[in-house]
């Protein structure tokens, strides 16, 4: 079932179009990453999905509820960690979670149990009765996360959940997100590319308020110019000495091969052989090198670089 459906969503701030006709759907079990440079419109989109900001145009459906028409019902199904995890500084985590549970209509024993379980889940037990303003950034973020998942929401929206955390805390947070993903829709925003690879099942790249890509991490990698590029390293002694440009030309003549770059140093030459189509050229290159009796030192295939795709897709804004 598709749990979050966004259609032609637009948001204008005066003359600025912060979100420009974005459409996508997310299903239960998916972890969707919003990827984009600062100011791309990720937070604005999330604020509209959670009903905090009114869209200038378009429609949003969350768990079957139209966010514009039934905002409170929609929000009941959503857990939300706003950017920077704003929390009441003078409350304790215990007090805050109790407050959020109350606002969500949880009462009595159920409320206590939920608060206790959630606190344990995000490792908050040791600071439950300390004022939030005295907590470290990592703990504050966990409190923000705890209030978002307290009611076991069907839709979880996390705006930069790992921002400002140290590497260990980042890994921990990602593990938590992955573990929760089975029965939820999770949408998270990030500008860390490795995060997309490690937690997201799909990613949307937003640039200048526009959706420029919507694909799996692997699918995005495949769009890279570098994808399927074959690296061939040859020892350049004997017959091959000084012949690298002729060898590059021979490789270029192979069917399926696109651009070939060569570089020679220290008695070795390296050829970066690009593929024309999506089909692999590894086998053809291997056979050819073998047929030519070139002393092969290395033969490998590169994966596409998400970073390269991201830069290419978002460059227009700069």
């Amino acid at each position, binding site marked *: 079932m598709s749990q979050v459906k966004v259609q032609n969503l637009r948001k204008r701030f005066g003359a600025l179009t912060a979100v420009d006709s974005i459409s996508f759907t997310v299903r239960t079990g998916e972890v969707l990453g919003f990827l984009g440079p600062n100011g791309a419109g990720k937070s604005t989109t999330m604020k509209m999905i959670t009903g905090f900001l009114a869209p200038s145009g378009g429609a949003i459906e969350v768990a079957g509820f139209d966010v514009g028409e039934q905002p409170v019902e929609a*929000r009941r199904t959503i857990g939300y960690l*706003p950017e920077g995890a*704003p929390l009441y500084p003078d409350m304790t985590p215990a007090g805050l979670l109790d407050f959020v549970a109350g606002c969500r209509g949880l009462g009595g024993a159920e409320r206590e149990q939920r608060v206790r379980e959630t606190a344990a889940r995000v490792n908050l037990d040791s600071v439950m009765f300390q004022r939030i303003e005295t907590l470290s950034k990592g703990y504050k973020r966990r409190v923000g996360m705890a209030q978002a998942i307290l009611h076991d929401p069907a839709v979880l929206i996390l705006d930069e959940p790992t921002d400002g955390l140290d590497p260990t805390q980042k890994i921990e947070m990602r593990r938590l997100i992955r573990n929760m993903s089975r029965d939820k829709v999770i949408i998270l925003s990030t500008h860390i590319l490795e995060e997309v690879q490690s937690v997201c099942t799909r990613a949307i790249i937003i640039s200048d308020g526009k959706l420029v890509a919507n694909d799996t991490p692997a699918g995005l990698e495949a769009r890279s110019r570098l994808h399927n590029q074959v690296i061939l390293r040859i020892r350049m002694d004997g017959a091959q000495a000084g012949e690298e440009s002729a060898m590059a030309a021979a490789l270029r003549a192979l069917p399926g091969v696109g651009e070939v770059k060569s570089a020679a140093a220290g008695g070795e030459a390296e050829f970066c052989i690009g593929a024309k189509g999506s089909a692999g050229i590894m086998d053809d290159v291997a056979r050819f090198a073998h047929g030519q009796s070139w002393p092969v030192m290395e033969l490998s295939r590169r994966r596409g670089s998400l970073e390269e795709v991201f830069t290419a897709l978002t460059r227009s804004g700069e």
Partner: protein
Amino acid sequence: MDAVRSIFKRELAGYFGTPIAYVFLVIFLLLSGIFTFYMGQFFERGQADLVSFFSFHPWLYLFLVPALSMRLWAEERRTGTVELLLTLPVAPWQAVLGKFLASWLFIAVALLLTTPLWITVNVLGDPDNGVIVAGYTGSLLMAGAYLSVGACVSALTRNQVIAFVLSMTLCFLLVLSGFPLVLDLFSAWAPGLLVDAVAALSFLTHFNAVTRGVIDLQDLVYFLSMIVFFLFVNTVLVDLKKSE
């Protein structure tokens, strides 16, 4: 109602969790005492009543209520917690009501702490306790009206000082419009109906009517509709300004 109750509880706990509450209570009691006994010439008048105590309330509230209400929304917007609050399954009016009721109850507690004064006048003489009950009722209602104005203004800005000054000014105008000085200014040229309209807007006119000992339906309706009106505007403003 779960939401209103939770917000009410959080807000009330917030008052008592900070020094604001105790500073407010001490100042309120101190000024009440000073106004009643010293400036109100309690002993010289030779009357066992609380007329002087109540007659200072409009002026006392002018400073103290904005100090209570200034943080209600300005602080939520400054720290960004308004995004946390209003993305819970809570309608803006529920948050507005919960916050208002908490600060109103807080003022009720402050008023309750002045009951030793009431006991004192009963020990010293034989006051009309009905008039005193009316005085307390009127004072609480008027405090509610001040509060609703203050809460409303607090939603306009993320700066508490601005919220304080603005709500004090607005409340001052609402008090002033019943002052003889202002009314005389009008009555010199304006038709009686307009003078009455200006006077009818004033906190003072209605409060004085109540403290005379008769709780008129008209005055009750005035204060309650002031509260409802400003809380309604408050709700609209919260919805409008929350994400700025």
